[in-house]
């Protein structure tokens, strides 16, 4: 590997490309050649540095960490001469304050600890040397040459790492089972079917640090005695698939995948499989069925995949984050990892914060942090300074937790006891304007649609739940609905085949538990306290606020608003479809919801 004294990272996201990023790269290389610096300074591509809208095309120079923005090819001659030949920073192109690196993943916020996300936005995902430069593949090399498979498994066991896909099964134990299983070949499978709405941690890792996942998988393969791996990635992530394929190709070229890795007798290769849009394929047995080319339907466990998995062979399934964590554990030791987190939950966890919170995006925090710290310190509080109402954790199979749960430590057990789940790490924050019955209905719509249809409790049960919730939201709830919902939830939970059905009632159960008054208001008073459910609200124009500007009338899709110019307007409630456009376009806050 050649060493360079400086590296220039050039953003090549689509917008920077449109603004001429490649012309900048060409100009840089030409100038470096012309000024005799090409052996000392290396130009690399990176995903994005600053907001390309403001800064593009921009570059980052290391080791100084100087960010130059809004460059044109004709600036490059001067820039290269000043910065790299004379060693003077060119102030006029420097972005003064440290910019927010991107919308999804800014600089670490208070209380964040980046383990899995440490390389995201820092290294070039399309260049394996960048990964190697930050100790990449060192853990694999060390495992193969200095450790027995049993020692690798013991280290992972000692670290306390638990499955980051959501269920939290100890990773080392899973590997032990797969290793002990009789049968050959064995398979290592990466679950990259990150289907939970609002969760995009895995996408970001795959797109920004794919080699960490490949390395983790190779270590797992060495530990359990496998030679073939599959990464099952959802089709909604085309960019992640592309990045993975490039990474696999490069790892093969470097002898880090393929036959006799690093000259040892350990061989391992990988293939990417793409999903085709089915949420249930995130369930491990359904995922295996899908790799085999069938409908992605789960089957009963046991036998677990560790005994009978892909093509009936012993298989180890972990998710993206779990694999990406493994190399760090082997590199820094089990003790380092287990020093973070709580008694039963070690290490860090990535979350995608979404909804009505100020800082949306990805975060990585130590296990055991409280929900309050996540929302108000890492997340910066509720948008528009509204009140907090609930946080939904763990995706569509998770529950909604109210403000009384804000001091709950985030770990598998605490969230489970409170009626929610850790899940893969989606967190949706909801403010006071959210109707919890509507939210429950919304999640049920999702699970009902995504139920694969194999077992009756899930297929029929979720449909019944949805029907009742829809009725309540339409103002036709009746006495006894709450009790029926509770009974259905109980039965679906108990009798469903896989995690999808068993978790499906969580949003309903948790909202019934914590926000029962809202259900009662809908059913008995025909009133939606958050003013969301269309059947129970009415749009009105406040006479003294309306200036008669006619904007609302012109934008109304059903011509329900009448009135003379410069005279107060009136909404005809019978024609109004309650789309809310008038409220949105009114510049005088004259439209209200009753």
């Amino acid at each position, binding site marked *: 590997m050649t060493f360079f004294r400086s590296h220039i990272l050039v953003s090549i996201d689509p917008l920077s490309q449109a603004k001429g990023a490649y012309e900048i790269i060409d100009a840089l290389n030409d100038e470096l050649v012309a000024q005799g610096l090409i052996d000392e300074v290396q130009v690399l591509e990176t995903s994005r540095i600053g907001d390309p809208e403001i800064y593009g095309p921009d570059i980052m120079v290391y080791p100084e960490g100087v960010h130059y923005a809004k460059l044109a090819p004709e600036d490059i001659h001067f820039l290269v001469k000043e910065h790299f030949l004379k060693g003077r920073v060119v102030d006029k192109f420097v972005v003064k304050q440290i910019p927010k690196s991107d*919308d*999804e993943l800014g600089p670490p916020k208070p209380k964040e600890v980046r383990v899995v996300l440490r390389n995201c936005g820092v290294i070039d995902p399309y260049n394996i040397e960048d990964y190697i430069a930050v100790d990449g593949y060192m853990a694999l090399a060390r495992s193969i040459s200095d450790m027995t498979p049993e020692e690798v498994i013991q280290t992972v066991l000692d670290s306390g790492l638990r499955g980051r896909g959501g269920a939290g099964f100890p990773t080392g134990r899973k590997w032990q089972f797969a290793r002990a299983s009789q049968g050959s070949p064995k398979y290592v499978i990466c679950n990259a079917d*990150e*289907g*939970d*709405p*609002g*969760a*995009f941690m895995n*996408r970001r890792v795959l797109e920004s640090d794919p080699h960490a996942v490949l390395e983790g998988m190779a270590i797992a393969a060495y530990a359990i005695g496998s030679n073939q791996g599959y990464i099952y990635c959802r*089709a*909604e*992530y085309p960019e992640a698939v592309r990045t993975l394929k490039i990474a696999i190709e490069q790892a093969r070229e470097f002898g880090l995948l393929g036959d006799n890795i690093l000259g040892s007798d350990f061989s391992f290769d990988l293939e990417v*499989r*793409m*999903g*085709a*849009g*089915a*949420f249930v394929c995130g369930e491990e047995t359904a995922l295996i069925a*899908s*790799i*085999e*080319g*069938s*409908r*992605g339907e789960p089957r009963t466990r046991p036998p677990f995949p560790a005994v009978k998995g892909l093509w009936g062979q012993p298989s180890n399934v972990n998710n993206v984050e779990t694999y990406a964590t493994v190399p760090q554990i082997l590199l820094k030791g089990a003790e380092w990892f287990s020093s973070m987190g709580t008694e039963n939950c070690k290490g860090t966890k990535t979350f*995608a914060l*979404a*909804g*009505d919170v100020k800082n*949306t*995006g990805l975060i990585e925090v130590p296990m055991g942090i409280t929900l309050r710290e996540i929302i108000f310190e890492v997340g910066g509080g509720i948008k528009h300074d509204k009140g907090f109402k609930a946080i*939904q954790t763990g995706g*569509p199979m998770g529950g909604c937790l109210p403000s009384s749960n804000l001091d709950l430590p985030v770990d598998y057990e605490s969230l489970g006891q409170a009626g929610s789940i850790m899940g893969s790490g*989606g967190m*949706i924050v*909801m403010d006071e304007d*959210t109707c919890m019955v509507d*939210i429950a209905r*919304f*999640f049920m*719509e*999702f699970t009902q649609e995504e139920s*694969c249809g194999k077992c009756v409790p899930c297929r029929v049960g979720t449909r019944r739940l949805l029907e009742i919730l829809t009725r309540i939201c339409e103002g036709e709830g009746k006495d006894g609905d709450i009790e029926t919902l509770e009974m259905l939830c109980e039965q679906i939970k108990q009798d469903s085949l896989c995690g999808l059905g068993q978790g499906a009632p969580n949003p309903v159960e948790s909202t019934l538990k914590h926000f029962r008054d809202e259900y009662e208001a809908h059913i008995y008073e025909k009133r939606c306290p958050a003013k969301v459910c269309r059947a129970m609200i009415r749009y009105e124009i406040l006479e003294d606020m309306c200036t008669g500007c006619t904007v609302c009338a012109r*934008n109304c*899709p*059903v011509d329900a608003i009448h009135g003379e110019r410069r005279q107060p307007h009136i909404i005809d409630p019978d024609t109004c*479809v309650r*789309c*809310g*456009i008038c409220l*949105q*376009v009114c510049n005088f806050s004259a439209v209200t919801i009753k």
Partner: protein
Amino acid sequence: MTPDNMNVLEVVRGVVEEHGGKAEELIPILNDVNRTIGYLPKEALEEIGRLVKTPKSKVSSVATFYTMMTTKPRGRHVIQFCESAPCHVAGGREVWLAIQDQLGLEDGETSEDGKWTLITASCLGLCGVGPIMLVDEDMYGNVTPSQVPEILARYS
């Protein structure tokens, strides 16, 4: 391209060959054919089954299981609206209703003139800029109900 001016069987044979004609490649094969033709016509499913030696019933059951495959022809423009919770909470519900009102279509329907197909998409992982709508390959973020007519008017 529509199936009328494209030889469905030729497309199928090309794709199957690319994937080595293996039965375990059924999903990638169906995906590719779906992408090339726009949907999976009956004759395509039959030919795939014959070539990879898989019963018609299984090919059909797989083709109808995954949401990214469709056995019905679609409109000239396909609108995909993200129906996921973060978009929903960020005002997606109003946008979704506005699109439906404007086009007179419900989820999964194609307009009579063959111009629009309206479907929901599962989370695209772009939750930072929700609500998200995709018209063909064009992504629109932070969509509001009042922008809907203007966005739709860009397509002929």
